[in-house]
C-alpha cells in the first residue's frame, strides 16, 4: 500500500491524505483511521474531521510534537482494517419534483429523460456518506448514477430549502438547514439531519449508507410534523 501523505495545516492541524480522487476505497481508509484514533486518541489530539480522501487532525501543539504525532498517525495508518461502511443504512423519504424539486424538469430535459426516469435513476443506488460538511449535517454522497451527472448552475441560489435532495457534477447530497447552493434540486425530505433540540442532534455520520424512498405528496404534512416534533423520520434498515 502506498504510504499516505502528511500535509501541514498550520501549527494546530494536519491532513493525512490517502489519495486525490473521490473513491470508496480511499474513503474507507479515512474512516478506518478516524475510528482508530477515536478509539485510542494520541496525546494532544483535539478532534478529527473525515473528508473524501483525507482525515483532518486538529491537535494542541503545546501538548504534542508535530513529528511525534506524524509518526503515530503513519504507524496507525499501516494497521487499518477498512470496513465498507459503518453498518448503518438509512431509508430516507423523498418527495420528488413540483415545489419539492424545482429543478427536476430541467434536469430531465437536459438528459433527454422523463422525470420518472430521473427519479428512478436517482433512487436506485445505495449511496454512501463520504463526509459531512459545509453546513451542520449536510451529507455529501457518493454513488450517483453517471447518467445523472449535471454541471452546477451558473448562478448559485442564495437559499435552498432545508432537506433539499440535490445533485451537482458527479456528486449528490442531502442538505440540512437552509443554505446557499449551486446544485440542482430534485426533491426534498422532511428528515432533519441536524435538529438542535433533538437527541442526537445529528442523524448521519460519514460512512453511513443512504437509500431514497419516493413518497406521495399527500404524506408530506404528516411526515414534516413528525420531523419537527423530533422524530428521525429516516429509518434505519438492514444493510
Amino acid at each position, binding site marked *: 500500500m502506498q504510504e499516505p501523505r502528511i*500535509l*501541514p*495545516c*498550520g*501549527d*494546530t*492541524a*494536519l*491532513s493525512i*491524505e490517502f489519495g*486525490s*480522487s*473521490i473513491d470508496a476505497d480511499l474513503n474507507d481508509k479515512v474512516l478506518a483511521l*478516524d475510528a482508530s484514533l477515536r478509539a485510542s486518541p494520541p496525546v494532544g489530539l*483535539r*478532534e*478529527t*474531521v*473525515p*473528508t*473524501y*480522501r*483525507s*482525515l*483532518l487532525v*486538529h491537535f494542541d*501543539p*503545546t501538548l504534542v510534537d*508535530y*513529528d511525534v504525532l506524524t509518526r503515530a498517525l503513519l504507524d496507525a495508518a499501516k494497521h487499518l482494517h477498512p470496513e465498507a461502511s459503518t453498518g448503518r443504512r438509512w431509508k430516507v423519504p423523498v418527495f420528488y419534483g413540483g415545489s419539492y424539486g424545482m429543478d427536476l424538469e430541467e434536469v430531465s430535459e437536459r438528459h433527454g429523460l422523463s422525470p420518472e426516469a430521473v427519479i428512478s435513476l436517482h433512487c436506485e443506488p445505495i449511496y454512501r456518506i463520504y*463526509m*459531512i*460538511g*459545509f*453546513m*451542520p*449535517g*449536510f451529507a*455529501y454522497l457518493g454513488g450517483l448514477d453517471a447518467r445523472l451527472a449535471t454541471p452546477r448552475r451558473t448562478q448559485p441560489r442564495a437559499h435552498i430549502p432545508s432537506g433539499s435532495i440535490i445533485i451537482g457534477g458527479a456528486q449528490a447530497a442531502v442538505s*440540512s*438547514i437552509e*443554505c446557499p447552493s449551486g446544485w440542482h434540486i430534485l426533491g426534498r425530505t422532511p428528515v432533519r439531519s*441536524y435538529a*438542535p433540540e433533538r437527541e442526537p*442532534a*445529528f442523524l448521519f*455520520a*460519514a460512512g453511513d449508507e443512504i437509500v431514497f424512498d419516493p413518497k406521495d405528496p399527500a404524506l408530506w404534512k404528516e411526515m414534516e410534523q413528525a420531523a419537527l416534533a423530533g422524530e428521525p423520520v429516516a429509518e434505519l434498515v438492514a444493510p
Partner: protein
Amino acid sequence: MTELVVNSCGPMTSLQDHGRFGYQRFGVSPSGAMDRRALAMANALVGNPPELAAIEFMHLGGSLTASGGKLQLALAGAECALTVGGRLIPPRTSFDLNDGETLEISAAKAGTFAYLAVGGGFSISPQLGSLSFHLRSKMGGLDGELLRAGDRLPCLAASPAGSLRQLAAPPTDDEGPIRVIMGPQDDYFTPEAIRTFLTCSFTVSMQADRMGFQLSGPRIEHAKGFNIVSDGIVEGHIQVPGSGQLIVLMRDRQTAGGYPKIATVVSADLDRLAQIRPGGTLQFRAVDQAEAVTAARTRKDWIASLPQWLTPVHPELTTERLLGANLISGAIDAMHPLVDQSASSGIAD
C-alpha cells in the same frame, strides 16, 4: 435577575466565547471570538476565566443599560470610547454599571473587534457546548440570532461584585509580518507565485467578515488548476480561488472546502490579523513548526499571565478627577494609567 439591555448596536454584534469544538465532523464551524486575546483581557478585568462568552462588537459600538441590579463590565480589543452617564471610562479598566445606568460604546477608532465582558458571565444556555454565534447556521448566541436593539441578556452577576481593576497589557510579539506555515497545497502554485506570496504586500479588502478576509494584491498563479477534491478547513487557511486573490479563512469558516490552500497563518497570529481593518496592509513570512509552536506557547502563557498584570483601581477615581489631581507630571501613559506601586512591585520582573 440582572439583565444587560441592548438599546442599540451595530449589525454584526454577537455573543462569542472560545468557540464550539468537537463537532466539525458534523459540519459545525467552531466560530468563537475573532480576537481571543482581547476576549481573555476583557474577561480578566472582571475576574472571569479567559474563554467565557462576551459581546463582540465589529467596527461599531452600541448602547446598553443595566436592569435589575449592578453589573461589573470591561471592554478590550478595538479602541472604543466608553462613557457611563457622560463620565469617560479609562481604557482597560473594569467599571460598575448601576441599575438603570447606560453605557455608550463608540465606533472603533483602531482595530475592528471589541469585547464587552460581564463579571460572572451570561445566564444563557449554550448550544453544543458554546454560546458562540454562527451566522450561517444560526447556531448559538441569544436564541440563534445576532444581538439587536431590545435584546435583554440575563447575567450571572458575580456577587458581591469584586473590586475594580485595570490591566497593564503585557508585551506581545506582534511586530512584523504575519507568520505562516506553507501548505497544505503549496504544490498547486508556481515558484513565482510562492515568491510573490512571501514578498509582496496585501491589502485587507471590504470583503472581510467573521468567515474570511479577502485580500487584494498581486495575482497568485496556480500551477495545476484550482479544482481539488474538497478537504478539511482550519482557521488561518489561505485559499486561492480562480481569481488568484487570497482569502484568509477566519473563525466562522466552513469545515470543508474546495480551493487549494497555499499556506496557513500560525495560531498565534490570528488575533492580530483579525484586528487589521479594511485598507490595512500585511505581509507574510514563512516559518517552520518549531517557530510556530514557540509562538503558540508564548500566546498561551501570555493569556495565563493576565491576572498578574491587574492592579486595583478605586471606583471614585474618575479620569476627570485624576487629571484634576495632577498626580503625575507630564503625560499620563494610557497603557499604564494608574499603577499602584505596592501592587506592581511583584510583577516588575
